[in-house]
């Protein structure tokens, strides 16, 4: 009952935040809302835009859910997203951009796997540093984001640069390697389905398997886990690796679904935006589908707002920030049990 009430309050609260933000920006409220809505859900193209924007949000959000459930405050989704992309582009260099390229979908799968491995490796580093050396994950992951960004810049203008060596971008993947699309005019690609499927798998992993159970136990109480002979360090590293793999997958889906080439603007902060998605999704994989959808819709809708304001997607960031602060504030107020070791 209480849960239902909360679920009902959520969209109302979000709408209130939205209206308030529009007020602050001195935008016509009704017209803006109409534009936002039509931009996100007005026609099939709008729906497609929303779905495509939600996809990396959902995947990085899931990454955050796994890490945070395991008590690891991974802020490095951005870096893991990027390194995933770089790993993918590196594999593409050997499977696609060679005299005898591999068959299209074989390359696609190899690239996607490489992205997952890259993200996982980047997160593993932070997890290992924490478990073995006591380096705070919040700090190491944030710093590794910058390293990843520099690494991407180096690769895009160095070893992975396009063949003509004119712009700091990697070669553009041919359509045969890209994830298949629903139709030529629309952006919707297979990645959307992959993301939703992975949300389901993440749920199963966290709530229906032995490793997921261990991970949640360690996240809720390391002392209790330890007293029951659960290897806390192992569970923590696992949380980071799975989290990084999901963020890397997000990078791969973005690379293979939308971007087709990497440059310094590869990630539009998708890694960071995963955090509010995870929080508003109550750190629950399935609810994250909803929260990612909401934010994806806001991003898609706000593109049309340019008619009124130059603020554009800034508006979305503001809405997101207010929503998260509100959520965290309310949660801190309603949570009666002490929060141990939260951020």
């Amino acid at each position: 009952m209480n849960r239902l009430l909360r679920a009902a309050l959520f969209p109302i609260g979000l709408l209130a935040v939205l209206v308030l933000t529009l007020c602050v920006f001195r935008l016509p409220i009704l017209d803006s809302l109409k534009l936002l809505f039509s931009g996100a859900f007005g026609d099939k193209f709008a729906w497609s835009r929303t779905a495509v924007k939600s996809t990396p949000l959902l995947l990085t959000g899931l990454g955050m859910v796994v890490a945070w459930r395991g008590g690891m405050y991974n802020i490095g989704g951005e870096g893991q997203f990027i390194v995933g992309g770089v790993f993918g582009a590196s594999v593409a260099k050997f499977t696609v951009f060679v005299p005898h390229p591999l068959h299209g979908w074989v390359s696609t799968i190899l690239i996607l796997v490489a992205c997952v491995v890259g993200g996982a490796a980047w997160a593993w580093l932070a997890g290992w540093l924490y478990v073995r050396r006591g380096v705070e994950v919040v700090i190491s992951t944030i710093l590794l984001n910058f390293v990843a960004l520099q690494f991407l810049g180096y690769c895009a203008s160095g070893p992975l640069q396009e063949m003509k060596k004119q712009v700091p971008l990697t070669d553009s993947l041919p359509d045969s390697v890209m994830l298949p699309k629903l139709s030529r005019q629309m952006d919707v690609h297979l990645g959307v389905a992959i993301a939703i499927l992975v949300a389901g798998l993440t749920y199963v992993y966290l709530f229906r398997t032995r490793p997921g159970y261990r991970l949640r136990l360690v996240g809720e109480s390391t002392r209790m886990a330890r007293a029951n002979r659960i290897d806390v360090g192992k569970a923590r590293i696992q949380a980071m690796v799975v989290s990084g793999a999901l963020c890397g997958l997000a990078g791969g889906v973005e690379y293979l679904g939308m971007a087709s080439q990497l440059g310094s603007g590869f990630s539009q902060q998708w890694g960071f935006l995963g955090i509010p998605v995870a929080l508003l999704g109550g750190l629950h994989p399935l609810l994250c589908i909803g929260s990612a959808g909401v934010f994806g819709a806001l991003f898609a809708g706000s593109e049309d707002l340019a008619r009124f304001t130059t603020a554009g997607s800034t508006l979305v960031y503001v809405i997101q920030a207010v929503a998260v602060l509100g959520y965290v504030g309310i949660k801190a107020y309603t949570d009666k049990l002490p929060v141990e070791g939260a951020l």
Partner: protein
Amino acid sequence: MTTLRVENVSKRFGTLVALDDVSVNFQSGEIHAVLGENGAGKSTLMNALSGFVKPDRGKILLNGEPIPLGLAFACKRIGIEMIHQHFTLVPAFTVQENLALARLGRLASTADAKKLSKPAIDASEALGWPLVPQVRTGQLPVGIQQRVEILKAISGHADVLIFDEPTAVLSPDEVNDLFRVLRRLKEEGKCVILIAHKLSEVLGIADRVTVLRRGMVVASALRADVDAPTLANWMVGEMPPRTVRGTAYQMEGGLQAERLTILGDRREIAVREASFEVRRGEILGFGGVDGNGQVELAECLAQVRPALSGSQKWSGKEASNKLPRIGYVPQDRQVDGLALRMTLQDNMLVSGMDRHELWIGPFVKLKAVARWANSLIKRYSIKAASANDLAGSLSGGNQQKVVVSRTLDNAPSLLVVVNPGRGLDIKATEYVYDMILAARDNGAAVALFSTDLDELYKLSDRVLFMVGGELVEDSGAASMVGGDR
């Protein structure tokens, strides 16, 4: 001549009576030891004397004048200084700065610090405690930090010096040196009050001894008039009747621990060369005052904490090679026993990791887990609406039942239990005791760690005591408080 009179002081914390109509006299030229078990009220009394705690009733008179109750700075100004058990130094400050800080003066520059700390530095030289004033205190070993703490107190014009368990962190040599200084302070005409729970130390230095138990003064006497057994009996009170059950159920095999040495959380040696045997079908009790290595030993037996050296053999085989099924009921159920924000079902599942009926490969069978959890709730009469209740929503007794039930339902061959009855009401306590006894009768080897003598003697078939990380034989009240050492 300084006198400090405590008259009919009482203090309650909620429902806990910490001090109950306490009257004592302290005077200069004496080392007056206040003895008592953990929770006897020693620290509360000292905090009342030094203004850190305001008594609910009663008076404290310094040379006939009432002291400002509950005002620590004011008490400091009239010459009552306390040397805290947990240091009150600023680790990032230098020795000099810390000493200056204690003088409550202006502290804006190094020159200020130097001037204000001068008396303390002089005193340190007079005592034969050379100090480098410019070293950060955080870098100093604890023994030296304590000297700084003491110098902070004696550099002013204190007449009354209260030492709160000063020997707890010191090595034997450091203890001797500290006692030298205490005697000297006594000769200088200070009124020295010493809180302690180690009998041997008290007997070695005190001129007068006051014993507290459950917030009341049991007795006050000159050192010359008492001996160790008397003091021990005063501290512990009437020993509970020993209803030791004998060895009727004892079975073949069990756990043999040989020369176990175990490190504590601060990498100090918490347990030293402990050797014992727990046979199947018996309960071996480990008694002693908190913090003498019991938790570390319990964790080691439960395979939660590795041993530094020594061996554990199960029925003759190395325990680490072939573990018996171990059940562990940790001391702090809310921290080590349960994840309070998880459901009962999730909390119980931690003991069901190896139960085949609950898993298919790596996947959990949620329905089977719910069935098992509900059956535990029913069989152990845990008061909860369903297995989906959060563990944190249960009362302490029911929380303990959750931990005990999930542990015992695995029929462990080795059961390690720490203070199982702590914080439980009589009914819940009896219930938990019955479960432990039943486990023993079913052939488990039980290691029971308890600081509660009643509990210890009620359940154990044999009893050992832990003092300073070492095992000693049961020899009545004295072994409880470490009187032999």
